[in-house]
């Protein structure tokens, strides 16, 4: 009854839920018992006909007092101890946890990975690995809450707190800020993406292609939470929107005219108090970024703001790669990446779960059933589409590899084989 | 406890004031007990700052130690003596009141208040010393010793405020003594006022070693 907790995505979520459900059952039992007794007494001993009937002067019962002191005490001790043990698991981080630094700020979550990779409002972790989040805040109190993992801890400025969890399934999970932190408290959300270990490895190694200045500027704007006060869609927040800001003309509070050119934007970022535009709060509530942003950073931000002022381009959702013009081996490589083969099959000869693709083509060996094979086109095709048909000696049987029958066409398999051939 | 019982007190300048709902001894004990309860709240009011002091002293041990040596312990000790003497005279005032000696009550209370003025003057000297070194509230060295100086000024400042309130209270009691209001049958204001004053002394008994000596 009353089982509403969200899906369980961490290994201790189950035990939290079982304590929770135990309390629910106890609570329902006692509520029904007491309220039931009250209603029963009410009906059974109701005054009839507007006249009081004789009642006994029962003043109490030591026996009952002892019973209803001792029984709740025992229940409380059991639940309390259960809860404390559940909590201890949440505080004992297993060795080898991946440590991610999390910084809360009004109103964004910043994540820094051991590799130095930084993200905002979204973080990616591998499934099955313990993840430790070391949390702090730059300004006011926040709280980092991942319902599916059953973890939460406040982000306190000036000190570090932590939480850990081990995700047991892949998928996207919601992160909330649960300590009130001002205007956009309810918008201080983040996304947790749990992916396979292989995908995580690739994601973390991916430094991204070289970003254009405007894109770098966009990243800086995100990282510094400029969006808390400056929208990019034209809506008014605290400060002016960045949309079509560049080139705008206006008047300062002292009556001076200005044009929103490079110098104006630069000054506004480094020293917001120097000139405040008419109609905006004076003195400006914006912090000065002098010494916090390099000249190059500023230039990039200006490029970004400029890009928001150009005539709206037709935004291309995603550049479609023209598969037809690619070499078959390149297409194979692409499938190899997309299907996450990298998780089990290396390209450098090292053995992970399955055999490395390097030098695989043409290799000979024995199956677990005693038969022998040569890694030719037919063998590889069968291995991809029906991995369990034959498992090579020394590898786990049945094979943990998913069957790609129906997921990859024969053409695509051929491309992958072409890719393998290049890995001599 | 019926209504007209104490009507005679209206004609008796040294008897307890007419309170219709309590007999005089009950009124006396109620007032004293009420003041004790109030002192309990006062103690906890300061308690918050003592708790904060304890935790920050643990956290910033060296800063607090260093900062303490910047305070003038001689003036602090002098102030301790001044307050102890004032407290003594407050107790003596109660004794005089219990014997109905209104003149002596007035004299003792004036000495108490005089000591309080002395205490505030010495405190002012200390504060102005701090001010010249930029240690005062808003000064450039206000946070040099982390939270020590802020706590020092909060604690001594609020204590000084209590000294001033106590002076007002005792001043009012003194005017009653000047009007010959007290007798062995009625001296509640003297006792209650003195109780308040002793608390002011009590707090300082802890403030002095904590702030000036051990830091």
């Amino acid at each position, binding site marked *: 009854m009353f089982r509403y907790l969200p899906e369980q995505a961490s290994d201790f979520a189950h035990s939290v839920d079982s304590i929770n459900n135990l309390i629910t059952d106890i609570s329902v039992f006692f509520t029904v018992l007491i309220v039931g007794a009250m209603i029963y007494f009410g009906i059974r001993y109701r005054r009839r006909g507007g006249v009081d009937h004789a009642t006994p*002067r029962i003043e109490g019962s030591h026996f009952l007092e002892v019973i209803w002191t001792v029984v709740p005490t025992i229940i409380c001790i059991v639940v309390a101890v259960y809860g404390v043990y559940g909590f201890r698991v949440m505080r004992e981080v297993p060795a080898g946890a991946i440590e991610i630094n999390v910084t809360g700020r009004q109103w964004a979550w910043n994540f820094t990975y051991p590799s130095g990779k930084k993200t905002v409002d979204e973080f990616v972790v591998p499934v099955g690995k313990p993840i430790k989040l070391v949390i702090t805040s730059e300004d006011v109190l926040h709280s980092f809450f991942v319902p599916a993992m059953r973890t939460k801890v406040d982000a306190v400025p000036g000190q570090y707190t932590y939480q850990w969890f081990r995700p047991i399934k892949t998928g996207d999970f919601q992160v909330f800020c649960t300590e009130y932190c001002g205007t956009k408290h309810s918008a201080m959300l983040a996304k947790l993406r749990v992916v396979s270990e292989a995908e995580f490895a690739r994601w973390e190694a991916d430094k991204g292609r070289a970003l254009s200045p405007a894109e770098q500027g966009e990243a800086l704007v995100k990282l510094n939470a400029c969006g808390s006060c400056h929208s990019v869609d034209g809506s008014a927040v605290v400060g002016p929107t960045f949309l079509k800001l560049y080139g705008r003309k206006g008047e300062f509070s002292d009556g001076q005219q200005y044009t929103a050119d490079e110098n104006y934007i630069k000054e506004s970022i480094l020293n917001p108090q120097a000139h405040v535009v008419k109609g905006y709060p004076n003195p400006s509530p914006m912090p000065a970024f002098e010494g916090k942003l390099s000249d190059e950073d500023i230039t990039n931000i200006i490029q970004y703001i400029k890009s928001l002022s150009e005539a709206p381009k037709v935004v291309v959702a995603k550049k479609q790669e023209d598969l037809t013009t690619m070499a078959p081996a390149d297409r194979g490589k692409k499938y190899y990446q997309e299907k996450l083969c990298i998780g089990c099959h290396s390209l450098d000869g090292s053995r992970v779960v399955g055999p490395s693709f390097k030098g695989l083509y043409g290799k000979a060996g024995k199956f677990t059933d005693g038969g022998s094979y040569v890694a030719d086109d037919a063998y590889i095709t069968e291995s991809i589409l029906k991995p369990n048909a034959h498992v090579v000696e020394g590898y786990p049987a049945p094979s943990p590899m998913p069957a790609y029958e129906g997921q990859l066409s024969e053409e695509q398999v051929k491309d992958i084989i072409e890719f393998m051939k290049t890995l001599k | 406890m019926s209504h007209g019982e104490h009507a005679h007190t209206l004609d008796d300048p040294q008897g307890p004031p007419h309170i219709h709902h309590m007999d005089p001894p009950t009124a006396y004990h109620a007032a004293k007990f009420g003041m004790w309860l109030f002192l309990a709240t006062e103690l*906890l009011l300061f308690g918050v700052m003592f708790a904060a002091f304890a935790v920050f002293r643990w956290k910033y041990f060296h800063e607090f130690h260093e900062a303490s040596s910047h305070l003038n312990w001689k003036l602090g000790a002098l102030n301790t003596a001044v307050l102890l003497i004032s407290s003594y005279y407050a107790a003596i005032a109660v004794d005089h009141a219990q014997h109905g000696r209104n003149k002596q009550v007035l004299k003792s209370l004036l000495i108490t208040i005089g000591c309080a003025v002395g205490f505030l003057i010495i405190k002012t000297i200390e504060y102005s010393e701090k001010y010249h070194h930029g240690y005062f509230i808003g000064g450039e060295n206000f*946070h040099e010793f982390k939270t020590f100086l802020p706590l020092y000024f909060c604690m001594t400042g609020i204590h000084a405020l209590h000294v001033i309130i106590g002076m007002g209270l005792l001043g009012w009691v003194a005017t009653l003594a000047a009007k010959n209001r007290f007798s062995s049958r009625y001296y509640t204001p003297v006792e209650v006022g003195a109780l308040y004053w002793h608390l002011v002394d009590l707090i300082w008994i802890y403030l002095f070693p904590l702030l000036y000596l051990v830091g």
Partner: protein
Amino acid sequence: MSASSTTAIAGSETNYLNCERGIWSWLTTVDHKRIALMYLYTLTLFFFVGGIAALAVRTELAFPGGQIMSADTYNRWFTAHGVIMIFLFIVPGIPAVMGNFLLPLMIGAYDVAFPKLNLLSLYVYWLGAAMALVSLGIHPVDTGWTFYGPYSIKTGSAVVWMTGAAFVLGFSSILTGLNFIVTIHKLRCPGMTWWRLPVFVWALYATSAIQVLATPVVGMTLMLLIFERAFGVGVFNPALGGDPVLFEHFFWFYSHPVVYIMVLPAFGVIGEIIPVFSRKPLFGYRAVVVSSMGIALVGFVVWAHHMLVSGISDFSAQFFSIVTFLVAIPTAVKVFNWVSTMYKGSITFSTPMLYAMAFVFLFMIAGTTGIYLATLAVDVFYHDTYFVVAHFHYTIQGGAVIGLIAALHYWFPKMFGKMYNDLIARAAWFLIILGFNLTFLPQFVLGMQGMPRRYYDYLPQFADLHLASTIGAYINAFGYSLALLNLFWAMAVSKKKAPSNPYDALGLEWRTQSPPIKDNFETIPTVDDTPYAYGTPVASH
């Protein structure tokens, strides 16, 4: 209870209401009953203001996305709701209104120990209320009623006025508590021994002790917060070496016990109502009394359970989680005793009794959901979600407010010498209980699904339950309006006179006329039995 010298002059024309006339006679009165009424009127006003804030918040949350206000406005409304309901309404609540009115009557005294101090408490309360209104007028606070730093140090809103108001209101609370403690110690009438005190008086005693001993802590804490903003002292500001978690400790050292300031008197009210309408002695009177004192005491030891995920040490989280369960035991004892009182009774479902029974039901939910929040591993999930919101509304509204409304209905004939329309009162009861549960039961589910509190906007998956909650809030508000209008009409317009003792109750307050005379009793009464001596004595006991 046989009373040797009680006086109830039925039909006497002078009473405390008409003995003096004119606004000035009210503003300068030292009569505890008149002071109680002035508290009642002011509190009712703030109950409506706080209620409007609640409706504003619920209306905004009816659907996802912004509805009628901006996020900043929303933050101010929910803060106003919290601050007004807590500091201006429910903390003074039952003690200042019902306690002031009943305490001297119940113990057989002419007045409280310090009548002038009592009036001063009221003026201090009005001063605090005025400061709160100034704050709302110049720049409504957006910190939440908890004033957590560093946000409360940084925000541009009028925090100093509001925390100053809370400080002043705390002072009023201290003076009232002090007055009550001295009164109970010094002014009990002959024969009124400690074990004959009505449980409501015991509850007031426990409450007063908390008011006197816990309030100064938050007073100084808020004062330090004011210094923080005015002088930059830095005690709670991490940028200056301070610790925001220390603020939480100090704040909850008061603000947890304050929950018992709100709800203990309500327990007392229920303990008075159930015996009268069951015609039975209060079952386990001493256990009920001891549990009140136990709750007051234990209430001081458990404060950091509000901070289990705030970054406190693991040791203290475990310590405070375990000791929190100590609260559950005396609370359970009370509930069992109330229900047992009804056993073999002669039960009348009068309006006060209906409220008392609803109270037991609502408080069962409040209490059992408290178990979730005390349990450490589970609280990590529930902390700062709607589950907490629902839980404390079940304790504070389902407990303290329902207790106050029950008390108003129960003692109304005594207070005004009139009778209210019973049918409307029952209809209002139904609407209040229905609306209340419709508002807050969905919030438990929202909390279980992970919906955080103090959110202006929410994910679409939470929409249905939020809408249900909003509808419930309107029904609830309508119910309260109906109940209070009914009482107001009875008080101001109705001519339906109430007898001195309409319920055949044994408490001393029923031994004087309705409304009582200015000094409560012609002569101080004497008692020689408990106020719960209902029913026929049985041999086995």
